[in-house]
């Protein structure tokens, strides 16, 4: 029996530059990169040497805490550079791609015949483990702790997000294989959430608990779905996988190869023709957006505008991202911007801001902060966009003062930074909510385990 999720609190941010449902494939990039920062909390131990030849799927580095967790190269080619930053932190491992791609063969597997250990070892060996993230703490899952359930959100409500019902078309076989495999890793259920009134490839898939989701963003955030279906208690762990990564896992079992090609939504008002492209994870951004972008004063984001990462044109597509957004930078002054009536920006108040009159309008927002950083003053507004049974302001304050007892008691185990993206968006005091949550979660992990 499936349980439908309907939320009322939230805010769907409608932006200009929705991707049209056509997919073109872009030329292979010259250089690909794997950036350890994409895997939060992982300290990389480098395996690949500069100048070495690697095949697609071959490990570049492993996690310091668990050497079984391998991080693979997305393409075959030559490791050209290990880019290091301050204190010799590895920023990126760059691979110059071969013209003809060759994949490391991990061997076809019949999923039905594998047991828990078999699936786990295969995922670890083939470098698919980083796809599995865990809550609490929103980090790559610890393979030694079995989750109480696995959650998959196949409904994207974030601004301009890729539409899964489009990008997953025709991937039923991969998805079914992956679901069969990962369901062996938990004694609990595999929960999949899909948009209500939407055809999804998951409609025909066995072995899952399918939930229909409706309501404004963050209804598509897996954190919201976990909270509504089976909230995390102290001591419990759930795993989270995105549908596009399930496809990779499925393909691994079916073909024995690790294929990190995915369908990326190229979106935003600075994109000339917003559409879908196929590209391999870690591709150079400039190649993905290829001449389809107005680069003049543009902010390019790998991911969505709420929790994506800022990248340069010569930067790289994030490992988990299936979206690139380009919006105008807002580095200009606004004359009496604090008191004149505002029609072209989104607001949840009605203080001479008129987005409430224009529910259908698509906005062209820029990166201006629309005001300065202040202490928390306004109360009661976060609750309107925050559907979890948590007091957001109180939790943020507990995280800021690093009061571990309070962090735990107020629901710290249940949240991820992206759950606080909307409160950060509407914050009158322009506080960095996601950063506060991230730092607090890191502290909790360190102190409470």
């Amino acid at each position, binding site marked *: 029996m499936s349980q439908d999720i309907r939320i009322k609190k939230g805010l769907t941010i409608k932006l200009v530059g929705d991707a049209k449902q056509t997919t073109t494939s872009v030329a292979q990039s010259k250089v690909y990169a794997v950036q350890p920062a994409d895997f939060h909390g992982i300290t990389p131990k480098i395996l690949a040497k500069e100048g070495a030849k690697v095949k697609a799927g071959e490990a570049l580095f492993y996690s310091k805490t668990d050497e079984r967790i391998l991080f693979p190269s997305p393409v075959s080619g030559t490791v050209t550079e290990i880019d290091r930053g301050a204190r010799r932190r590895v920023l990126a491992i760059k691979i110059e791609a071969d013209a003809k791609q060759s994949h490391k063969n991990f061997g076809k597997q019949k999923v039905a015949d594998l047991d828990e250990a078999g699936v786990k070892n295969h995922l670890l060996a083939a470098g698919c483990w980083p796809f599995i993230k865990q809550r609490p703490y929103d980090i790559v899952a610890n393979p030694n702790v079995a989750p109480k359930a696995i959650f998959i959100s196949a409904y994207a409500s974030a601004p301009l997000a890729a539409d899964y019902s489009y990008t997953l078309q025709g991937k039923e076989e991969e998805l079914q294989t992956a679901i069969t495999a990962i369901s062996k890793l938990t004694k609990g259920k595999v929960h999949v959430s899909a948009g209500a009134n939407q055809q999804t490839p998951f409609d025909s898939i066995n072995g899952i608990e399918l939930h229909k989701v409706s309501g404004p963003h963050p209804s598509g955030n897996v954190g919201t779905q976990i909270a509504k279906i089976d909230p995390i208690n102290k*001591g419990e762990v759930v795993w989270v996988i995105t549908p596009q990564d399930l496809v990779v896992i499925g393909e691994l079992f079916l073909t024995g190869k690790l294929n990190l090609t995915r369908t990326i939504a190229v979106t935003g008002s600075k994109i000339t023709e917003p559409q879908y492209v196929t590209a391999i994870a870690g591709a150079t951004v400039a190649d993905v957006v290829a001449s389809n972008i107005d680069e003049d004063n543009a902010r390019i984001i790998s991911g969505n505008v709420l929790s994506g990462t800022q990248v340069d044109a010569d930067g790289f597509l994030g490992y988990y991202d299936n979206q690139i957004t380009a919006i105008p930078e807002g580095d200009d002054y606004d004359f009496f911007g604090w008191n004149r009536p505002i029609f072209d920006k989104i*607001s949840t108040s009605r*203080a001479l801001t008129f987005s409430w009159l224009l529910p259908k309008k698509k906005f062209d927002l820029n*990166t201006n*902060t629309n005001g300065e950083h*202040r202490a928390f003053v*306004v*109360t009661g507004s976060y609750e309107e966009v925050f559907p979890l049974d948590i007091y957001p302001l109180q939790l943020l304050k507990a995280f800021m003062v690093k009061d571990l007892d309070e962090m735990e008691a107020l629901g710290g185990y249940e949240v991820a930074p992206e759950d606080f993206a909307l409160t950060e968006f509407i914050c009158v005091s322009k506080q960095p909510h996601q950063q506060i949550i991230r730092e607090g979660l890191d502290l909790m992990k360190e102190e409470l385990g």
Partner: protein
Amino acid sequence: MSLKNKLHDLKEKYKGTKMAPAFNAFHTFLYTPNEVTHNGTHVKAADDLKRTMNTVIMALVPCLIFGMFNAGYQHYAAIDSSLREDVLANFFTMDNLWIGIIKVLPLVVVSYGVGLVIEFIFAVIKGHEVEEGYLVTGMLVPLIVPVDTPLWMLAVAVAFGVVIGKEVFGGTGMNILNPALTIRAFLFFAYPTWMSGDKVWVYDAVNRAGTADAISGETILGSYAQNLEPVYSNWDKFFGFIPGSVGETSTFLILIGAAFLIFTKIGSWRIIVSTFIGAAVMGVIFNQVVAADIITSSSKFYGLMSAPWWEHLMIGGLAFGAVYMATDPVTASQTNRGKWIYGFLIGFISIMIRVFNPAYPEGVFLAILLMNVFAPTIDHYVVRGNVKRRMNRLKVKTA
């Protein structure tokens, strides 16, 4: 070169210097800064703290303008009571407005001047930006003092209120007590003779005391406290053609301000509504006490206790306090459920103090300050409810 570019160059010049916050205060008043997002959300909603505070100020402007006319009207009506026979014809006159300009505007100027200077000094010393909180406080203060309050007194009180009420805690967002009410409380306890009686509410009444031209204006609460029937009609009370502090007399305009604040989602409707409910409940209780003959008309509380409960809602500072003071988000309860409790208790205690306080028949500011202190306690218990729910979930799981 345009103004925008000139200011930008100046900002770069001042960057990192002691005077940067002072310069930025003026600069950001003219222009919303060119700051862009870095981590976290790449786009932000349109509202900032300046806009929020500005909305409250807009809601206060009708009260200020009305207060300016009322300053003159009460003065002339005290001299010639026949003016009260046709209020509309004698209220919005240039003579009245002139008294408002010479008496009320200086209060506004002193309040903003002293308060903002202190804000700037603290911002420069502590190296943080000048915060917007005082924009509202500075507007509230002149509206809640008697019209004849000497300016030096106001200046001293503002200095006290801003420093002790706010800056020592760390500025806007950190204070425990409402700064405007801290200022009001300081005036009340430091200079009680200027804050109560039948002289201070009317311009020039203090000067003329003891002369042949002596005038006076007793507030409605003052009359009730002396077991006298007030001379004003209910419509006068509702629309505010009565003596009182500068901007708090017109319940009608305050309700319009409340509607504006609630519509713009800047003011908490929960606090506003629950304050009125709390006051009505206490009023009804007192009415019942009188109806049950528990006290007689000889009791010194009889006048205020027998005033109908709905009249309590529109006399004195209750409406002004409920709409503009209790809703201050920093000092109020921060949880939605807490706001109901907080507001209710403010209303309830206001009327209680109003009736039982022998020295000064108005309790709103004391009630709000008291609840400011208890707001964190209310929140604590509301939040514990959430924590307990989480604990129970865990227990059910493990049981």
